[in-house]
């Protein structure tokens, strides 16, 4: 009996010590993450709370806000511009995602083949990514102008010109091409990291089995870089919902409002037509835009994402 009591006491002491250690460790953990929590609270929590508040009020910055119930939502879903912008966004995705994805895969495959100066070449593709949106928009606008260099060459050689920003579909394609130019290098590097992680012995085994390069790409590379592909895809979707500078600078949302994006829609309602719509309506658009964007990401992950084991 004494033996059992002693054991019980020992276990209880051990539990107490472990609990004390656990509490000590936990408090250290809290202390370490506290700057992050405070930072998030200030720069994410407060704006989020403010955004949620704004969704239910009508406000023009100048006079006190009035409770507006769900009217901002009703107005948004009955606003033709909202549906037009949603259509424009999917239209932009239809060009931007395949162009930049194929470009990034090709770049990653090419970089993977390089034996020397791979880092230098890879980094040189990142120059586009760090260039100013305003700056390269102006450059592209001038290059693709009706009497710009590309159209002049085409006209002199073949007697034709391409109305890059004149026709709605071409204007969307032109902007998609510009954004692809900016991001192909960045996405390419992510995919290169994915390709680099694929075990080489898989290719050797496939070669022994007589697999062609094409079969190796479609049966080994592509399935095994699935996590990197999904990551790029998520980034592409998020980016499409956030396009602002290029159409704002080049097309002003036209022609026929077909390059008008969610960000422009939010900005205009927040600051240009603030006496009629205002920040309340803009906040509602931004929350709905975020919800649509998250839904797209969720859907894409559900359809495309596969568990990959590279060990």
């Amino acid at each position: 009996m004494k033996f059992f009591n002693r054991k019980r006491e020992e276990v209880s002491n051990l539990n107490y010590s472990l609990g004390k250690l656990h509490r000590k460790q936990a408090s250290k953990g809290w202390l370490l993450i506290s700057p992050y929590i405070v930072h998030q609270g200030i720069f994410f929590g407060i704006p989020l709370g403010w955004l949620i508040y704004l969704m239910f009020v009508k406000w023009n910055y100048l006079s006190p806000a009035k409770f507006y119930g769900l009217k901002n939502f009703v107005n948004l879903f009955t606003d033709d511009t909202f549906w037009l912008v949603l259509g424009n966004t999917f239209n932009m995705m239809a060009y931007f995602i395949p162009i930049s994805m194929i470009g990034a895969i090709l770049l990653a495959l090419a970089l993977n083949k390089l034996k020397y100066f791979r880092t230098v070449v890879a980094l040189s593709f990142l120059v586009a990514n760090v260039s100013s949106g305003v700056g390269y928009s102006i450059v592209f606008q001038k290059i693709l102008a009706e009497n710009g260099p590309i159209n002049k060459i085409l006209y002199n050689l073949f007697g034709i010109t391409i109305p890059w920003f004149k026709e709605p579909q071409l204007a969307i394609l032109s902007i998609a091409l510009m954004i692809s130019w900016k991001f192909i290098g960045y996405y390419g590097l992510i995919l290169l990291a994915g390709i680099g992680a694929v075990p080489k012995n898989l290719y050797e085994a496939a070669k022994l089995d007589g697999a062609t390069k094409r079969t190796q790409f479609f049966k080994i590379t592509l399935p095994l870089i699935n996590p990197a592909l999904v990551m790029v895809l998520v980034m592409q979707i998020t980016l499409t919902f956030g396009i602002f500078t290029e159409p704002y600078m080049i097309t002003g949302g036209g022609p026929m409002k077909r390059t008008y994006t969610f960000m422009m829609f939010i900005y205009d309602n927040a600051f240009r037509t603030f006496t009629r719509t205002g920040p309340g309506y803009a906040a509602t658009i931004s929350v709905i835009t975020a919800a649509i964007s998250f839904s797209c990401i969720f859907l894409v992950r559900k359809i495309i994402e596969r568990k990959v084991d590279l060990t």
Partner: protein
Amino acid sequence: MKKLLVVLVILLTISFTFGTINFWTAPNPQQEEFWKGMVEEWNANNPDAQIKWKVIPATGSSEEAILTAIASGEGPDLCTNIFSGFAAQLIEAGVLVPWNDFDGYEELLEKRGMVEAIKGWEFGGNSYVIPIYSNPMLVWWRSDILKEAGFDNPPRTYSEVLALGEKVAIPKERYAYAFIKGKNWWDRWYDFITHYYAAGDGAPYFDVQNNKCLFNKVEGSSGDAIGYEVANFIEELFDKDYDAISMIDNALYLGAVVGQINGPWDMPTAASVFPDVYPEHIVFSTPPVPDSYPADKPIKTFADTKGMVLFNFAKDKDKIWEFVKWVYSDPEHDKKWLELTNLPPVRDDLTTNELFASIFENNTGLKAYAEYVPYAVPPALTTFTTEIQDLMTQYLIEPLSLQKETAKDAVDRTVNEINKELF
């Protein structure tokens, strides 16, 4: 140490007793130089009404900066760089103080010679905005190309522009006349509205009281509505390939277009970047008008104008008024403004007052602009400025430049869409 404390206490007492006036001005180096000097001089002579001067913070637009500042309680008491549409929105929100409530208002209008100009800024019988400058929009023509084409003077009418096009246009290389200024809502001030005012002798394009479009209603010199007259001109320009939606940069200076609408703010850049073209090979004219427009009648144009407003949350309103009166009742200040900014101040004696003669002697371009100040009409003071001009872009300018609709259909559709949007 004690002395220092006493001085500090006195300074604090003064600042709490009198407060400071928050004054914001346009983020433009030349205007900044002018206001810096003005504020320094005022502050040195008026210790009881100190002005804290600041440039409108850099954001997407001045309106965005002002609105967010007001919302966070950090807004200005007095602010410049206010365009008509924003002024109308602020008036509607009830945050502006009418200048005509102050003693000596009429006297200031007389002194600065802006009795007529202020009428374009009146809203409900009150004047909430003091116009600072007025930029008449004029057409810049390449005189060397005009001469080569056999034109001694710039084209005055639509037919003359089209005749010029026949002689100078080279497909995808050179265009006759850049009617379209751009794709943003504000570009409509400089193309459609400018040409509308020219064709219609300054007739209004929008009924501010009833929120109705007028440009398919008000008759022009041909008997047709002014809007149709202007739209027909756009249609013909694009039909004949004499204009393009997007041109290379600096098309006028590179000879890729023969004429385009410009403001006086384009002069310094033209002179420094293209000294071989400006001013030697540039002539100025009013915007072209319909052929039926009387030959002896002066041609009106659009006034790109911005003004100064006083917010109703300002504490020292009377002192602010004293400052404004001090700035605008002395023509020397307007002279300094003109010298520094090249933007014509809103006064009707610009070309007759000897004080300004020396400036115009050395700057013929500026003189041309100053001469048209009395003929420059400001835009409609409506809260729907951006909506109206966005719809003009979407339903008028784009379909006509893409040749997707006839002039009449495009005008009628635009009017319908605007009226529908506003009600």
